[in-house]
């Protein structure tokens, strides 16, 4: 009898707690974060996951969420595995997520066709399919503040600046070492077009995922080919290994460029002093000297609500995660403004992201003055093709090297539009955009 009472009591308690859920749900929005704290890419994934989670937690702790709506954060571990990422997508889909942040180009490529069908926006911040910047073809996909093609064009532009102009690239040799996966292959069409247009020789050095920590062959080839510059699209364990191998073959580190994903502190730190001069692209501040980072420390890290290792707080990739979550939060805020609703849904979020307009005043309000550049998206432009800058490794940390500058948008944008049309044709019948272009 006693046992029966206990079971009945348990069932009643469970029913009562379930009944209480909708009341909580009305004051919150659900934001899943795809992360990888395990596996071969965890070295890059952990700082980003910490930054993403901590910024949203800070908003909950400091402001009670966004305009009184708490953010219900949930991480889904993908291990940077495309299959697991798609499983995560299917798993969170039922919980009405506002936005999906896949944090992997491979996963992004898989969920792009699903996003329009399920009406869930995909935010692939500075990664994923470059052509998705064309909002008229990809209304549910966003890749601000810059695409991979913008990144590759910015690297070529910086090399040209050092050499004395684009015409000086003629006859130069540029090597491209990349993770032999969707991510690393993404900028190749642009680099090949640029090689033809500006007359430089492009040599490709693919690094299979299984060989990330075994790159001596690729770097022996680099030693033999003697390129003038090297560009890297690496991730996870590939980055520190490449930096070490470059040092080993005596490649001049100031002529070795990484995309923004090859700029972790542990990546360059693997080479220590010898990696001095190694440079990567960047689009946000490094270090803790910003009010927003101070607030994260106060409300989240010091309060014991973060998983970050204090020694790695506010390092480059951590701040990248903060920037990613800032975009999510601003998308929510903008959607609230546009719709007049407090608790928005995924369709509203899509409109919010499409109308993002982060100006200097807004950056200052967020405590991000000097941390990031202004950002404006539109119905047709889901990337913004915003400015970037170069960071250089000084042997101990990243230092800003030079001023912010624009990617070669005038050349890249038409190429993206062509690529979007090609994607549409290759995936026919691709739905025509029917989503309204809201603004207020």
């Amino acid at each position, binding site marked *: 009898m006693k046992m029966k009472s206990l079971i009945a009591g348990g069932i009643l308690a469970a029913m009562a707690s379930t009944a209480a859920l909708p009341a909580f749900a009305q004051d919150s929005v659900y934001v899943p974060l795809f992360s990888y*704290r*395990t*596996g*071969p*890419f*965890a*070295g890059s*994934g*952990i700082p980003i996951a910490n930054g993403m989670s901590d910024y949203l937690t800070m908003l909950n702790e400091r402001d009670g969420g966004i305009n009184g709506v708490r953010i219900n954060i949930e991480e889904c571990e993908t291990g940077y595995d495309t299959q697991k990422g798609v499983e995560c997508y299917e798993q969170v889909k039922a919980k009405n997520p506002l936005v999906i942040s896949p944090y992997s180009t491979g996963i992004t490529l898989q969920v792009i066709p699903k996003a329009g069908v399920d009406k869930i926006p995909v935010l692939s911040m500075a990664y994923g399919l470059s052509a998705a910047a064309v909002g008229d073809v990809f209304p549910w996909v966003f890749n601000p503040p810059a695409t991979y093609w913008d990144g590759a064009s910015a690297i070529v532009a910086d090399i040209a600046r050092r050499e004395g102009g684009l015409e000086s690239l003629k006859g130069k040799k540029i090597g491209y070492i990349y993770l*032999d996966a969707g991510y690393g292959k993404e900028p190749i069409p642009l680099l090949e077009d640029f090689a033809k247009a500006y007359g430089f020789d492009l040599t*490709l*050095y*693919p*690094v*299979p*995922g*299984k*060989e*990330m*920590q*075994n790159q*001596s*062959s*690729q770097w*022996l*080839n680099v*030693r*033999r080919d003697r390129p003038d510059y090297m560009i890297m699209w690496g991730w*996870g*364990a590939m980055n*520190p*290994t490449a930096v*070490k191998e470059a040092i*080993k*073959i*005596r490649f001049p580190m100031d002529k070795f460029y990484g995309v923004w994903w090859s700029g972790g502190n*542990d990546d360059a*730190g*693997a080479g220590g002093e010898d990696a001095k001069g190694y440079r990567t692209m960047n689009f946000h501040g490094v270090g803790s000297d910003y009010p927003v980072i101070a607030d994260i420390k106060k409300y989240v890290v010091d309060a014991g609500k973060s998983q970050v*290792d204090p020694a790695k707080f506010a390092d480059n990739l951590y701040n990248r995660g903060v920037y990613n979550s800032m975009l999510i939060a601003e998308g929510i805020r903008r959607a609230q403004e546009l719709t007049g609703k407090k608790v928005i849904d995924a369709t509203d979020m899509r409109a919010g992201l499409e109308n993002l307009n982060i100006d200097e005043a807004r950056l200052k309000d967020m405590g991000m003055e000097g941390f990031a550049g202004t950002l404006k998206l539109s119905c047709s432009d889901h990337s913004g093709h915003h400015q970037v800058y170069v960071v250089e490794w000084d042997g101990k940390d990243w230092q800003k090297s030079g001023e912010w500058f624009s990617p070669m948008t005038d050349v890249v944008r038409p190429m993206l539009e062509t690529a979007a049309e090609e994607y549409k044709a290759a995936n026919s019948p691709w739905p025509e955009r029917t989503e309204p272009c809201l603004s207020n």
Partner: protein
Amino acid sequence: MLHQIFVDPFLQMADMPDFLLQVIWEGFVAGVLYALIALGFVLIFKASGVFNFAQGIMVVFAGLTLVGLHEAGVPAYLALALAISVMALLAIAVERFVMRPLVNQPDIILLMSTIGMTYFLIGLGEFVFGGEPKKMITRELGLPTGSTEIEIGEQGLVILQHIDIAAAVIAIIMVSALALFFNKTRIGRALRAVADDHQAAQSVGISLNQIWAIVWFAAGIVALATGIMWGARSDVSFALEIVALKALPVLILGGFTSIPGAIVGGLIIGIGEKIGEIYWGPLVGGGIESWLAYMIALIFLLFRPQGLFGERIIERV
């Protein structure tokens, strides 16, 4: 096309002999490291007939234990001693909780149990040490850093990393020590007896449990040495587990039961894949290294199915 395949690569080799030497050296070092991983597989397979799928993660786990303990404030040599102790405890645990209950089970069951161990060790390693890559404590362990440049001809240059030289020396010492252990000690002879015939070994009073624990411990030591050496070349991270799969073609080539086979197989695969990737890889866009090793092994298999040094398979009707 035929010129590019059959003539060009050799002209390149003749044109830049220093570079060819560098390629061979890099292949040799990679081969030594493959051989060390393969050695771990061979030790366990010889003594128990188990293909230890967990050997790769043992390399990572051993390396992480060493670096993790040092990060926690333990001096380097004490951390090394403690890491060896952890591998000993792991060996005893494997024998007690995996091998002993599964004795006389089909080989596939034992293989599955090592796959289970792999996931257990991945989880345990990530839980205890986190998923971030860690820098190997090369200097603290007194291992050499830096490099020596050897000039060849007027412009030729071969760069030898001191850590690579150390890896080769340590591998030679380990193989010699293992050879002595197997041939000259009582336990070594018992181990060989177990390898030859479990039941016959038991009938003369050899304890299978003891032998298995010893052999798993020896594989643990080999894993630790591999973790240190490979960790010094890149970092200690869970991606190393995948690199360990490079030992498979080495085993196919050298035979699953032969220590010299692991060494010679490792060197053939290491040097072969480097030469293939550098001189023939560009013809197909590069990146052939990951499958070339298997191609080399399969070609050898056509002529010697038991591997280079494996025991000859004789089936009598």
